[in-house]
């Protein structure tokens, strides 16, 4: 079913809305949540919570991009759950991704205000925009979807080691970019 029709079902408060949403995006949501939590039970709970979040959000919201809207909710909920469970963080891709980014951004001072986070998001947008398509894909899939190197390799057909090298270079460039933007 097309996204617009699913959104219509939500707007009409149809009970089939969540079923259609799950049919179309269930696997994607599970992947996002699993990559962060590394636990299928928790991931399933997070995904169900996300459906409930979408139900509550539409209406009044009418997202232009349902995929991004849903994935963001799943990601947010999964990150929140993970932050309460340090054991999960350690064994999931999320923990590894944080470690990787910490290597190029070693500061102990964290960004706390929403304003600063939004500013950082804008800068990251600019950074991603200047990458070529494959590097955009790798960066977003690794640090947004928290994909493993193995699945990135399968998705792109590029060798795992080559992906590691590429992402390492991207992180170095990110550090330079953030310095140029006077963020660090």
């Amino acid at each position, binding site marked *: 079913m097309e996204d617009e029709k699913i959104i219509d079902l939500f707007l009409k408060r149809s009970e089939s809305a969540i079923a259609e949403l799950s049919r179309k995006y269930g696997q994607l949501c599970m992947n996002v949540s699993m990559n962060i939590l590394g636990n299928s039970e928790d991931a399933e709970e997070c995904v169900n919570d996300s459906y409930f979040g979408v139900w509550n959000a539409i209406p009044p919201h009418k997202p232009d991009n349902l995929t991004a809207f849903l994935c963001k909710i799943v990601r947010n909920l999964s990150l929140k759950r993970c932050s309460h469970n340090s054991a999960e963080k350690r064994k999931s891709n999320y923990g590894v991704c944080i470690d990787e980014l910490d290597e190029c951004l070693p500061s102990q001072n964290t960004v706390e205000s929403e304003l600063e986070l939004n500013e950082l998001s804008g800068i*990251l947008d600019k950074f991603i925009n200047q990458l070529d398509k494959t590097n955009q894909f790798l960066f977003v899939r690794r640090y947004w979807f928290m994909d493993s190197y193995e699945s990135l390799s399968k998705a792109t057909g590029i060798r795992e080691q080559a992906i590691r090298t590429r992402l390492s270079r991207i992180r170095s460039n990110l550090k330079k970019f953030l310095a140029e933007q006077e963020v660090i």
Partner: protein
Amino acid sequence: MNGKDIIQAMNNIDDKYISEFADTSRFRKKNKFYLMPRFYGSVAALLVIGISIFIAMNKNDPPIDIVQENNNAVSEITKNNDTPRKNDSEMTSHPVYQNELNTTDDIADTAENAVNKGNDFEEDNIFSIKVYAAEVPLELNLYETVQIKGDFNPIMSSSRGIGIEFEITPSERGLTLQTDNGYFVTWDKDSGAITNHSSEYFIDEKSDIFWTTQSSENSVINILNQNAVISVINISYDENTNTFSAQRTQ
């Protein structure tokens, strides 16, 4: 700022990246033409490098067909360079060799260009075979036919009347000559004594050795080094012209 902040901030990046990259299979299909050139580009680059190396390697060597055509030239270089070369005027003076000599000269020029090729041969294989067709010895090059006018009937050979004279410079370990027809003869130039040997004769230094046949049939002389045949000379006789033809086939 640390890694966790980046992960958090990533949540608010432009929706287009999330929706575009959410389906990995779609990305691959969409970008196969982007990824493929990289693969084929790498293959093409490797091919270019390989071809360049091949060309560079073959640049210093004569083309293979030239080497084959001038096997005699290459073999000439394997021989001991101490042996003086016969000059052209001497060679052309004998009418029997007129045809062969032109070929020899052409090949010799090429042979000089291919001198380095001969240096790869093992020390043990360095030897020289010359045959006296007239008053001067001729290099008996591989696949080159040298004709020797027989001075005596029915089947005697060289101008000296003893047999076909070969001047052989052996390798350090010496050479053994074997023939399936006839025998070898040595001649002491000082005393004039002629010694008949058997069908096998060992030489350990540069020598003049005569081969005498007992019939007009085709004959073979094998040259062995350490029991291994390193050269073969086929000799035939034409009764009509009273001429022997000697050819190295190995």
